[in-house]
């Protein structure tokens, strides 16, 4: 019995020693720098909104998803539809605002999302026309900012013979700043 207790104690000590020993190098922290690239605010229409073909005197919807793929938030956003002749396509409103969309961060890697919807009604075709094609522009305006980070070296010893300070590059290239 006493021998059994001794074995148990030895195992416990060995286990403590093994479990207590870790790597002298600390574990690497997973990280991603969103502030690179030239991604921007993206807009996609939902399928069949608006439909490819709209019949006279029928209603339709224009639904779009906004996704802020930039690394910075956008604010004071406005979505506007321009160039539709209201005789053929009358919208309940031509523009809509959105207050802010977060940029991509570790907490929101897809960026802020917003869904905007316009409801419209088609009018009558001209005379006995077979069709009418209405082209339009979708314009989105917003406020945003981005950071530009670079190293500026101030060298107080530029006339020294042996200078281990700044090394000037003739050309520098950047990988974007997470905004257009």
């Amino acid at each position, binding site marked *: 019995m006493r021998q059994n207790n001794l074995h148990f104690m030895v195992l416990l000590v060995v286990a403590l020693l093994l479990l207590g020993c870790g790597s002298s190098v600390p574990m690497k922290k997973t990280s991603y720098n969103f502030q690179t690239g030239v991604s921007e605010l993206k807009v996609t229409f939902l399928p069949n909104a608006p439909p490819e073909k709209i019949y006279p005197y029928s209603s339709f919807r224009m639904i779009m998803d906004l996704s802020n793929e930039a690394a910075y938030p956008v604010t004071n956003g406005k979505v506007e539809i321009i160039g539709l002749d209201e*005789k053929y396509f009358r919208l309940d409103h031509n523009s809509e605002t959105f207050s802010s969309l977060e940029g991509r961060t570790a907490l929101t890697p897809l960026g802020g999302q917003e869904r905007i919807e316009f409801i419209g009604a088609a009018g009558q*075709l001209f005379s006995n026309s077979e069709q009418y094609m209405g082209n339009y522009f979708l314009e989105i305006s917003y406020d945003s900012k981005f950071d530009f980070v670079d190293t500026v070296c101030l060298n107080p010893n530029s006339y020294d013979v042996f200078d281990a300070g700044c090394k000037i590059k003739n050309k520098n290239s950047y990988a974007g700043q997470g905004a257009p």
Partner: protein
Amino acid sequence: MGISSWFGKGAAASGAGGKVAEKAAATGIGKALAPALGKAASKVGGAVSAGGSAAQGALWGAGATVGEGVMNLLKQQSFLLFLVGLVHFFFLRTNTGAINYFTLLMFLFGAYVFFTFLEEKKMIEKKIGGWIVIFAFMVWYFIYGSTLSNLTYFGIITGAIILILGIATKGEGFKAAAWAFVPIIFLFLDMGLLALLFGGIELRLTTIINNLIQYMPWWSLLGLFCFPTEEKSKLSTFMEVVRVVGIMYIVIVCVGSAVPAFGNESILPTPETLANAQKQATEKFSGENPFVSNMICIFDGRSDVAQCVKERQDLAEDEFYCKNVEEIDKGTPQFDQCLKDRKDKREKDLIQVTGVNDPTIKMPTRAELVTDKFFPRESTIYSTDNYQIQYPVEVKITNPREQQFMVEVNCNFTETKSNPKSFLGKISGGDRINYLEAGTAGDNKFYVDQATQSKLIYCTYPGEPKLNGSYKLTFTAELTGLNTTSRLARVFIGTKSEQWKKDWISSNKIFDAHFPNKVYTSVGPEDFARLNFAFGHSGSYPIIESGKTILLQSMIENVGPGEITKVWQYKINLDGFLPDPADSKCLNGDVAPSSKKLKKDIYLPGCIIQSLPLEFTNPEMYIYREFEAELKYDYKIKKEESIRVTLVS
């Protein structure tokens, strides 16, 4: 380490920083899915096989005689010119009319043959005077670019030489010099003078001119003209045959295109047809002779000769119009007013008002008078018989918009002899409408309100004396109360910065989105007539800015084959637009039924748009809008048939 950051306001109008996401998209209204109907065009081809047999055997003696004859024929310069002219026309002449070496050679050879012909005919004694003019012309025209200053220079030198030559030869030298202009004219004809003169003028004669341009070997014609006539031999007989065939060819080329149809009608154009064509041509060619205009302007010392010529031509045309078309006596105040109106109209016409067929309207409103193969074009009746021949005509209406209008059919018999008499025929087969219009009753009217409608109408001769002989039977159908609408697209941008214009207009964004077919004029169905209209800073520019002069012009275009008989109302729907003058008839009005202009295109009064509706004056971006114009009118179509009635007693 330095840190910099900036903030931008994203706004397309200001174009200042920030991000503006734009997407051009399209959506459309459609009545229904339109299955593509492929037209299966089948051609029935017939192969004509020609069988022939070649007679074997050679007649060597006869062959030698023929060979000698051919050599003699080729020795005739005029015949050679005839042949070479054909080769030049069909093989060597450039399609573009550009001058090549063959053209110059033909010119020199043609001149040589022509001068030789004149010598043989004793019309000139020496060719030298002609050659001087020919070579002077070639140097001036081909080398010095035929400028007016060089003409003076060369003209004086050539004139002096000809003068000396003429005096030395006691006047004979002048003759050859004068005749030298004949080959010069042929050179111009060969190079495309007719195409230059008649291009762009739409006359009934154009077909003939086209034929002359396309099918007339002018140098061969000159060779034909120079064929010898005195010799009496087999050779001259052959050339005579060629000459006759050549003349027949010319006649066919000229007259063939004017033959109206084969059948009972005359194979030659009637005197009336020719007289009408002559009248039309006279009405068209109403300006001052350009040579006279040029001379007067040069001797007046005008530095801008071209402008001076244009002014004189315009004035001459206006005087002709007022005198012959409006029938106003020259020297009266009305005549002066007419000239002023014409001048004003010309200035206003600087805005071109045109319209095109709406490509989205595949089915326009149409009407047609149709006679079939059973139509009694030839018939025999007995004098004792009370039977009246009925001449049927089918009125076919295509009315896709299901308009409601009235059709009144009439017929008229006209004798086809000199001093013809005309008789109004009696119509039956209509709806005997008397409830739509008070006091009207008859069998010659019917009412249309369906998409497709056809009505068989009969025309009979009114009574005694009975028909006997050849007549022209004219059916007319007048459509009363037609309505055609056209539309025009415009973009209003208000007042914008140069940068905005650069981003949206110069970059063609707006044009590509709203005018992808580059049609900036009004469009309308290809009905009988339509109202073409345009407004803007110029007729063909669709973008309208605030604060700039906006002109409005319109015209009624006769699109169909008949006549506009009445314009009840024209109306351009520009609600909120203020015309100047305010009481202008440019937006709304009618055209008097007695106007002579009704048959043709009718130009309506224009005006200046003084102010725009508030929504268009300064939009945040731009506004794209279509405007409509309505035309209510009557239209008359006709159909003619030649009939022959034999009266048997």
